[in-house]
């Protein structure tokens, strides 16, 4: 009975249309990854739905935005839950997008033919960051307001266009109504569109590139130019095994959903007091995913650290697949031939994480270093 029901649900052209040709399902089931890419998609879905629901109660007006958040919290049915879900899904998404990227790097799956997909993926990563930044300011609370102040000040260190860029972003010389409207427009209309489009390209490329390298190559470590993937071995994919994939993915979706809901039920999304331009919190910190940058900038040389280093890093990351043309170890975690690359990547990631930790937890008023057990002065 059970088999029949699942057959009915999953053995049809809809699900099968996701793949271009038959995939060795058994091998897929044995892959050593979490499927973070699809998890990102699930989180995106959660964010979109909760975001739309939040949109009904929110007004991007400096006098009403904060009130809208409070209305959500106290008056709107499930308002608090959805807001929490939106916030925590966003945090989870940032983390999982990052982890997904790391995974792809460590399994060298950006290599041919997937170079372009790496680029689209990284563009999506940047889009996620932009979404996070624009979303951060929308509650118009102290945290968001001052974080935007800091962020917009960073771009001024760009040569020549710095000030103009800040003016463009803020719609003015300071963070105010225009900045809020810009952020809202970006967050709700423009960026989702862009993300949708790029995501479409990303998925199309995934399909075209035959999904996971490991699944395709079945663990064969070397492949020569012009070779075709070997024929599948082992127990053949049967109708019953295809359902397993679908069910597994759906249950992953539910798991993510449960995780997000669980966290939102237990913890309230942070909200500080309403934005007050005359009260500067000390210290002012950028959002946690950017606070590493802020820490870097605190070492001085704003142009170097604020503009040059990030941009160079971005360009380098985008170019990784075009620089690394090796063939060995695609689809394998930590293949020995990639030791150098892996170490380099890990080092960069660790440094950035370290910067985040220092900036978030070890910096006090005046950006002075404080150990966690030291108390901060008031003035």
């Amino acid at each position, binding site marked *: 009975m059970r088999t029949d029901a699942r057959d009915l649900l999953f053995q049809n052209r809809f699900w099968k249309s996701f793949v271009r040709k038959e995939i060795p399902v058994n091998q897929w089931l044995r892959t050593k990854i979490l499927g973070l890419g699809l998890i990102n998609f699930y989180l995106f879905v959660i964010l979109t739905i909760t975001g739309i629901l939040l949109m009904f109660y929110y007004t991007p007006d400096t006098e009403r935005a904060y009130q809208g958040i409070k209305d959500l919290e106290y008056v709107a049915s499930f308002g608090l839950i959805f807001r929490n879900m939106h916030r925590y899904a966003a*945090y989870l998404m940032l983390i999982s997008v990052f*982890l997904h990227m790391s995974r792809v790097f460590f399994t060298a799956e950006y290599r041919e033919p997937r170079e372009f997909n790496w680029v689209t993926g990284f563009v999506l990563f940047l889009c996620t960051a932009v979404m996070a930044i624009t979303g951060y300011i929308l509650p118009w609370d102290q945290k968001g307001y001052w974080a935007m102040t800091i962020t917009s000040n960073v771009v001024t260190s760009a040569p020549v266009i710095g000030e103009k860029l800040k003016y463009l972003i803020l719609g003015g010389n300071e963070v105010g109504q225009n900045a809020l409207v810009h952020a809202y427009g970006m967050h709700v209309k423009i960026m989702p569109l862009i993300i949708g489009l790029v995501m479409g390209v990303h998925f199309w490329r995934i399909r075209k590139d035959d999904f996971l390298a490991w699944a395709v190559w079945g663990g064969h470590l070397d492949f020569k130019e012009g070779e075709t993937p070997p024929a599948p071995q082992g127990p053949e994919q049967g109708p019953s095994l295809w359902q397993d994939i679908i069910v597994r993915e759906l249950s992953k979706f539910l798991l993510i959903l449960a995780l997000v809901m669980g966290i939102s039920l237990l913890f309230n999304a942070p909200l500080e007091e309403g934005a007050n331009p005359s009260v500067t919190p000390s210290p002012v910190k950028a959002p946690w995913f950017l606070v590493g940058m802020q820490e870097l900038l605190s070492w001085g040389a704003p142009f170097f650290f604020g503009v040059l280093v990030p941009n160079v890093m971005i360009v380098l990351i985008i170019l990784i697949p075009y620089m690394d043309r090796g063939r060995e170890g695609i689809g394998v975690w930590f293949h020995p031939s990639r030791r150098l690359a892996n170490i380099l990547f890990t080092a960069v990631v660790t440094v950035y994480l370290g910067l985040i930790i220092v900036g978030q937890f070890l910096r006090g008023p005046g950006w002075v270093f404080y150990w966690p057990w030291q*108390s901060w002065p008031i003035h």
Partner: protein
Amino acid sequence: MKRYLALMILAGVLVLIVLNLPGEGQKPGGEGPEAKGKAAGFSLPRRQTTLTFVERKGKTLYDFYCVLCHGATGNGDGFNSFNLTQQPAKLADPHLLAKLSDAQIMAVVKKGGAALGLSSQMPSWGSLFKDQDITSLIAYVRTLSKPGGE
């Protein structure tokens, strides 16, 4: 291997979220280890009185008009009471108050001592107080006879 890795990542994610929650609010300023807090003299404003709002309004009236004869605690020993031929009513006496209904007290305040056949040295306040004022006054006067005072 896969499951282990998956769990590790999940755990890491959770840890990151939980750590991130208190965020900047972790260290509200200035809670040094050497402070002694309340012992050092930080006090909270005390609650004025256990009287209700209405009773407090009555007390304001009582303390201005009535206390001169009836006394601050209602024992009929205000400083002017010694110049009177009859001692003012002991409002703190629970037996006396139990015998008087609100309407009777209202009458004596409004029309003077003559309303209850008492000395006319108790003046009539009717043209000075509104009924509402007298009600709040009665509410306060009744607290005078309660044990534990105010």
